């Protein structure tokens, strides 16, 4: 049970949750997630846990942060937690992102809360003096969260928006091409948008740039046994099913088929 330190709305749809965590939980790696027992938002019971990946870790203060979007009973229930309440979380779970020593510059491309999932790996990259370009896509400026978090780690930030059309695939494609030309893209990381994942996969394939994608699927156990959380992947021309909770949530971008 992790005590809630703070819990605030960052805009009308997203909430930022900070909890005090155990050493075991603090060992969470970028891209890993916790399976949260959310309080019920209504009279009825809430029956299943909800997975949430970690947005930031503050080992000094022993805290873990989540950034999540309220979409249904679980997340609206979660949003009810008050500082002082405690949160029952199972984890850290799953296989996260990894960095290869030879990568000097990486590009993270996220949309919406997908940014939350990409923040920790960007931070680690920054700490290892790997250059990070963060392309942040959103409906409109107020959904461009965690810009400052990426800034803090010295990432170059490129915001693209639906509101001014800059988030269009062609434009993002051009940005990626430019980064590749400039030698600023040794590896790709993405989360939160199928459209952008397909784009990055295509460009990555064309230029032979390795990539990783964090995927999602409805879960039950979060631990491997139940096979609820499968997604389709293509390995050497052959379709295979993998469990997001234990074989992921981070997968090879070129093997991902998307949804």
């Amino acid at each position, binding site marked *: 049970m992790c005590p809630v330190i703070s819990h605030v709305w960052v805009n009308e749809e997203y909430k930022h949750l900070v909890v005090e965590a155990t050493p075991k939980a603090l060992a969470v790696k970028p891209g890993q997630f916790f399976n949260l027992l959310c309080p019920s938002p209504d009279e*009825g019971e809430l029956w299943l846990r909800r997975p949430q990946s970690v947005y930031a870790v503050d080992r000094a203060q022993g805290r873990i942060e989540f950034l*999540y*979007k309220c*979409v249904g009973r679980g997340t609206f229930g979660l949003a009810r937690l008050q500082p002082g309440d405690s949160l029952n979380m199972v984890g850290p779970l799953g296989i996260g992102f990894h960095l290869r020593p030879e990568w000097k510059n990486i590009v993270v491309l996220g*949309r*919406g*809360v*997908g*940014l939350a999932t990409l923040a920790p790996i960007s931070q680690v990259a920054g700490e290892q003096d790997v250059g990070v370009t963060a392309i942040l*896509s*959103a*409906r409109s400026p107020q*959904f461009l969260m965690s810009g400052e978090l990426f800034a803090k780690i010295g990432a170059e930030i490129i915001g693209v928006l639906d509101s001014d059309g800059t988030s269009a695939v062609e434009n993002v494609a051009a940005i990626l091409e430019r980064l590749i030309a400039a030698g600023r893209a040794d590896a790709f990381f993405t*989360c*939160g*948008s*199928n459209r952008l994942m397909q784009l990055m996969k295509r460009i990555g394939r064309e230029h032979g740039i390795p990539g990783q994608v964090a*995927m*999602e*699927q*409805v879960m039950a156990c979060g631990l491997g046994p139940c096979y609820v959380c499968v997604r389709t992947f293509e390995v050497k021309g052959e379709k295979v099913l993998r469990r997001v909770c234990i074989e992921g949530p981070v997968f090879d971008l070129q093997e991902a088929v998307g*949804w």
Partner: protein
Amino acid sequence: MVDLSVRIGSVRLANPVMPASGAFSAELSQVMDLNRLGALVAKTVSRDFRAGNPPPRVAEVEGGMINSIGLPTKGLEYFLKVQVPDYKRFTPPLVASITSQDPDDFAAMAREVSIPEVAVIEVNISCPTRNPGGGNFALHEDHTYKVMQGIRAATDKPVWCKLSPNAGDVVAIAKAAEAAGADALVVANTILGLKIDTKTFRPAIGNKLGGISGPGIKPIIMRMVYQCAKAVKIPVIGCGGIVKVEDVVEYMLAGASAVMMGYIIFRNPSSMIAIIDGLGEWCARRGFARVADLTGAMIDEPPAETYAAAAAPIG
């Protein structure tokens, strides 16, 4: 203005919300305006007086309650002489619910309740604590067909046949009832269950086994309503675990033309009225001019992957 009316064969209901038999009586006028209801559904009567089962007659279980009332009744004559006139103080159509352990008597009762004041006859062939041969005919298609055929021959009133969720092949029973001339199906009665008190080691209710009702059975009855509505041409009335507007919508999407509710009356006596109001608002919000258009409107395709992936927060 949303049109909340629905047709169950020849019977027009002002709205699809009805109380379930056994959870309703004119005495509820203490807490709600009975004239708002789609219909008035009387407690099941048998020909002669029955005391019913020993108390306690209910207990709470996960998902709702277990009951074995044992169909207590003052008998058919009392129903016709005293209760029917009492119900006629109110305007919605009166649904009389009858039961018997003998097919011939069942038919005779159907004939006797076919008076002008009664708009519909609901036949309860699905009391969960009775045996297939006697009272719980709905466990077998042949029993169902036989008893329904006799009833059909005995009356011209619309006959609604209340099925049992304890039948293995509820679709076969539904077809048998339709073939025998039922005008509509009520899906369904309670599911047979057991609760043991771990303090006393005794059954929680006097009859030991009882019928389970309430939200916990809804996803099971939902499936049966869907299966039956696909299999028969007559209207299906959904009944099981309804406590809110979305539950009514869900049953109608699955193929129900109307619904009945019991448990929620115990939990919140006046909630049927709130649900009727809320159903109108729901239709208006979702752009349905007629609630009847919801019947069978389920889109029979898997959730688009993009939906499962709504989990992926597309900012």
